[in-house]
């Protein structure tokens, strides 16, 4: 087995008829995709349904998967597209919900207020709910980048592939996300007298 790309080996094995390979492959990635979708899907949509749909779509295209690519990136792309299809079908949600609310050009980035986050403010994030709630305050476009980079360990290049955007755009969006999070954190109750 090629240690450098176990996913590609599992895909090959499944295509050769090894059913267990599909189980191993999918069980490696279900938690990550579920985390991604459940953090992005609007409450009106069923995240489990979307995840199931995404994995089935991936299965349909498995014989066309370019094994030189990252399987994780490919899978996340399918998951993102599946989510967007569901959002599009649900007319009450704006289709552009994965676009960031503000412009992405570097000139639009607001200057940092110059104050590092106090450790006490960061300690508020030690509560899982507080940290999760903070992340939810981001618009879906920025949240997607943060979830993929911080929680799911994708590189900016991979995130660019998933979102179909240039890497620089992704980096800019990430910086804006961090700024927005910092601002939200300072606005959280309990941080008023800090920093």
């Amino acid at each position, binding site marked *: 087995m090629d240690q450098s790309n176990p996913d590609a080996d599992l895909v090959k094995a499944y295509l050769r008829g090894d059913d267990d390979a599909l189980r191993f492959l999918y069980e490696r990635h279900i938690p990550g995709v579920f985390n991604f979708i459940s953090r992005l899907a609007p409450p009106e949509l069923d995240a489990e349904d979307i995840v199931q*749909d995404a994995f089935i779509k991936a299965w349909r295209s498995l014989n066309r998967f370019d094994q030189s690519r990252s399987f994780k990136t490919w899978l996340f792309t399918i998951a993102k597209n599946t989510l967007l299809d569901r959002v599009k079908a649900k007319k009450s949600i704006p289709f552009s919900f994965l676009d960031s609310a503000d412009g992405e050009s570097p000139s639009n980035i607001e200057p940092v207020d110059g104050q590092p986050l106090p450790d006490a403010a960061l300690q508020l994030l030690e509560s*899982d709910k507080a940290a999760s709630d903070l992340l939810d305050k981001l618009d879906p476009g920025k949240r997607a980048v943060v979830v993929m980079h911080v929680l799911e360990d994708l590189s900016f290049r991979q995130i660019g592939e998933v979102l179909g955007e240039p890497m620089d755009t992704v980096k800019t969006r990430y910086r804006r996300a961090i700024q927005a999070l910092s601002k939200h954190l300072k606005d959280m109750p309990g941080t008023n007298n800090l920093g």
Partner: protein
Amino acid sequence: MNQIDAVERKKDEYMAESLEKALAKIPAKLPPPGMYGRIRSGIDAEIQLRSLRRKAFGFASGFVVLTAVVAVFWSVLAQELAQSAFFDYLKVLWMDRDVVAANWSSIGSSLLESLPVVNLMVWLLFSFFGIGLVWILVQTWSKTHPHNGSNHLAIYT
């Protein structure tokens, strides 16, 4: 100015790092138990649906071919029937019942002997195959589309 920019960049980096560390500790939203099983059910349902569609296509193609064969044999059969004495004997059956009643045995045998038996048997055989295929097609269709119109192979179960 460059020094100030450098300090600002450092502060940016510190802020980003601090937040990243904090966010990285957010526990992942975990899928429910049995998520793979649910996905696998969907895949198996799709495999079954594809198999049924292939069978349906095969049976439909077979039905079309058989229909063509039956039509060809029917035209041959009709021609042979017209050339045989079969219809003449049938006329006798309707027109002269007293004669038929008196000689029903020999008239019956003559009627049967006038039939183009081989082609008739072949035609009947292909017709039965055709009916059988239609029946299998209906069965296959009903498995994928029960009476209430829903697809019980729906993968989202």
